[in-house]
């Protein structure tokens, strides 16, 4: 359980730090926050390579869902550029 606790604590600390730094710089775009969270999540999960196979499988599933969210942002941005309208 110690490895799970460490993983959650690291993820929480990274997310918190990101929120504080980006808000301190006056960042107003939510997609930037989401993209940074996603990168941090993927990197940290990759670094915890020794998690047991079952944990890695379920964390990969969460990663796929987050990546779908990222793809949604990308598609929205492309449509905004192509159509010249603001969607989000």
């Amino acid at each position, binding site marked *: 359980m*110690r490895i*799970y606790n460490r*993983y*959650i604590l690291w993820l929480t600390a990274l*997310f918190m730090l990101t929120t504080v730094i*980006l808000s301190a710089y006056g960042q107003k775009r*939510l997609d930037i*926050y989401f993209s940074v969270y996603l990168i941090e999540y993927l990197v940290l999960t990759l670094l915890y390579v020794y998690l047991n196979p079952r*944990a890695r499988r379920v964390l990969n599933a*969460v990663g796929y869902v987050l990546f779908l969210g990222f793809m949604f942002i990308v598609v929205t941005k492309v449509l905004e550029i192509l159509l010249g309208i603001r969607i989000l």
Partner: protein
Amino acid sequence: MAMKFSRHPYGFLGLGLLLAGTLIGSVSYLVLASTPLTALGMSAIILGAVCLALERARPKTPPEVSAILLEAGMQNIGAIVEELGLRSKAIYLPSSMTGGRPKALIPLQATLSGLTLKTPLPNRLIARYGPGADDIGLLVTTPGSAAINMLEAKPGGTSTELEAALSSVLVGTTDLAAGVRVTMSDKRVTVEISDPSMEYENIWFYECLGSPLASILASVVAEALDQAIRVAREEHGRRKEVIELEVLG
């Protein structure tokens, strides 16, 4: 409720974070129009999803039950070894030498220096490993024998591959240590374990087969090198344990 909470800590934490994140996120986005607070809600939702996912990955058998089973198994083997008056150190054999899973051979002779087997040992408790009258030993299943099944593939024989395999078992799957470092020299494999969660006990089982940590290491190394292994030395520090394995063969 308290019992349920202690049984599903990540589940409750995940559910709480999901609910709080949804509430904070939606109120911040729709009412307050605050991006940082909405991002905070979003991060809480992600953390909640991670906690719920980890809840599904938790072992089905509680650690306390595993500890009881391990102790019962160790005491049984220890009682047999003591009753038979065996004084020699166990030799950990790879699956190729036992015809099944890796096991430990406790020979009758106290001064067995090497072991060469032409055919795999029979899958019995009392096994004959040589032509001599005294070439008999106890072939027992150890904690390490079961730990081998936790690896996805047979590990390679280099120190890096061994370190990866041992970290996967000790750090990732069983949570018995915080880190593992392996160094190899001629016929010696030295493993440094940081922050081990099992304490060494001065009992005959440990003297003969090594501590459960040493047993897991010896089984994994025996399987990786495909050679017989003996626990040569165990050094116990406050937050560090050094286990030296001797490669026989």
